[in-house]
Structures are given as structure tokens and as C-alpha cells.
């Protein structure tokens, strides 16, 4: 009863730390406030890393993990940053599990996709490049390339090479060392260049 009355007393602007305290004191329902507050943020991260049809499943998994780890949340830390780390690691775990049973991607790009890539790389203006990036072929080529990398390399290359995060930020999100991230980015980038520039789809 006391918890419920306190839950009601928490306004819409109550801090994350206050809500976390309430949840840790046994009020599970208070977690819904955090879920509502950061749901879109979590979806924004997850949709970049996992296939669209698996986003809901991974977001749910990430929030369950966040709930289970609430005891480790320190008030000084920002909840959003803390949650981002959990969400990114959940995406990484998704690929680790997925890669164990993944289908082997085609050894080389189809002629149609190779031709598309030639045209896209030759695009002169930014607008033309953007238009090419929105095409269905772009997604296929990107998916094919990422499928050739390991789960860890895939996450690292998405964060650093594709999203432009610093090595340090990516290392923090994935709980890797900065040196590990640098090495992985270097190797994965070489592999991408080899696949798409030199070999034109050769493994």
C-alpha cells in the first residue's frame, strides 16, 4: 500500500533514479515508466543492428536485462547511457546466437548487385548517392557484406565505420577494450574493401 501511494506521488517528471529506487524496493509496476520513457530510444538503437522483424523481440529482451541489472545502476550514472550499453550488448548477443545457426551467405554478389554497386560508387552528387542508398539493392549489398563478418566484427563495424562513433565509445558500449575495437575495425574494414572494391563480391 505504501509503495502504491508513493508510486502515485511520483509525477511524470520524476527522475530515473527515483523510479529505479522504487522498483528496487519491490514496485515492479514502476518500471513501466522507464519502459515508456526510453522505449523509442531503445528501438532506435536496435533497429540499426538487427533485422526489422526481430526488433520487438530484442527490445523486450534488453528491457528484461535492464530490469535484472537494476541493482548495479548507480545514481550518478545517466540511466539513458546505462540502458544504451545494455541494449547494444543485447544486439551483439542476438548476432552471437544467430550466427551459430545462420545460413552461409552466397560466396559472391549477384551480377545485378555488382552492377548496382558500380553505379552507386560512381555517383557524383550527394543527392544521387542518397537516392542510391535508399534503393533495395543497397540494403542487400550491406546485408551481404555484414553477413560475411563475425558477430563482434559486425557490431564494431556498424558502430564505428557506419555510425561514426569513436573507438572509445564503441568499446564502452560493447564492453571491449579500445585496442580490441581498433584491431577489429581495421580488419573488418580491410575485408569489406576486399569484398566490395577489389574482388567485387569474391569471398
Amino acid at each position: 500500500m505504501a509503495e502504491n501511494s508513493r508510486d502515485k506521488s511520483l509525477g511524470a517528471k520524476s527522475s530515473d533514479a527515483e523510479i529505479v529506487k522504487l522498483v528496487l524496493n519491490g514496485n515492479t509496476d514502476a518500471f513501466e515508466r522507464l519502459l515508456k520513457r526510453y522505449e523509442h530510444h531503445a528501438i532506435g538503437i536496435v533497429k540499426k543492428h538487427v533485422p526489422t522483424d526481430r526488433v520487438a523481440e530484442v527490445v523486450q529482451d534488453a528491457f528484461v536485462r535492464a530490469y535484472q541489472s537494476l541493482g548495479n545502476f548507480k545514481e550518478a550514472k545517466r540511466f539513458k547511457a546505462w540502458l544504451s550499453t545494455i541494449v547494444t550488448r543485447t544486439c551483439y548477443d542476438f548476432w552471437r546466437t544467430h550466427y551459430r545457426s545462420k545460413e552461409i551467405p552466397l560466396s559472391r554478389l549477384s551480377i545485378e548487385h555488382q552492377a548496382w554497386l558500380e553505379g552507386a560508387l560512381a555517383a557524383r552528387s550527394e543527392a544521387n548517392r542518397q537516392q542510391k542508398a535508399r534503393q533495395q539493392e543497397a540494403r542487400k549489398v550491406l546485408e551481404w557484406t555484414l553477413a560475411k563478418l563475425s558477430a563482434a566484427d559486425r557490431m564494431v563495424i556498424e558502430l564505428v565505420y557506419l555510425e561514426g562513433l569513436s573507438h572509445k565509445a564503441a568499446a564502452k558500449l560493447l564492453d571491449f577494450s579500445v585496442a580490441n575495437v581498433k584491431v577489429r575495425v581495421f580488419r573488418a574494414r580491410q575485408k569489406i574493401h576486399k569484398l566490395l572494391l577489389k574482388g567485387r563480391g569474391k569471398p
Partner: protein
Amino acid sequence: MKTQPNKKQALRKLLSLTHQEKESPTDLGPLHQNTMRAIRKLGAGKRTTTYFNRFEGLVWRLSPLAATMIVIFTVWFLNFELVTDADLFILASLETDEFSILQIINF
């Protein structure tokens, strides 16, 4: 010579744009309800009552006491006159009376 770096840059831009242009999921179903259902299944307050959490809190609270104890024991131990095996042998061969463990450690 310049074409290769330019191509690499163009490739990075193209892949980055594709990555960012990824479509948002249109229907996530009852994400809210499913997540809260899964969380309620886990039960409340378990995280605060785990032995590890209690131990973690205790360790830091008791650390000043532990440090003081270490200093006291170190000083006490340094003032301690240790008896070597050779001394013990001499003591045992000269002393025909029985002696206790307390005598051995010079207490």
C-alpha cells in the same frame, strides 16, 4: 593513385547512408504488455536481497576496519620473536622437561 582512397570514401558514405536509411519497424505488436509480463514473471525485489549484493555492500563498509586490522597485525607480527627450527632443536635437546606450544612461540 587517388582513385582508390576516393572509392573507399565513396563506399563508406554509401554503406553509412544505407545503414541510416534502414526503415523503422511499422508494427511492434504488444511490446509494452509483453515486456511488463516478462518482468512481472521474474518477481519483485529479488535483486536487492541476493547474498552477493549484501556482501558487496558489507565489503566496502568494513574496508576501513579491515585496513586497520591489517596494520595492527603487521606491527604485532613484526615485534614477534620467531623461533627457528634449529633453535627448537637445541631447546628440545637441552630441555628435558616438556614444553608447550605457547613456550615455543615465546608467549
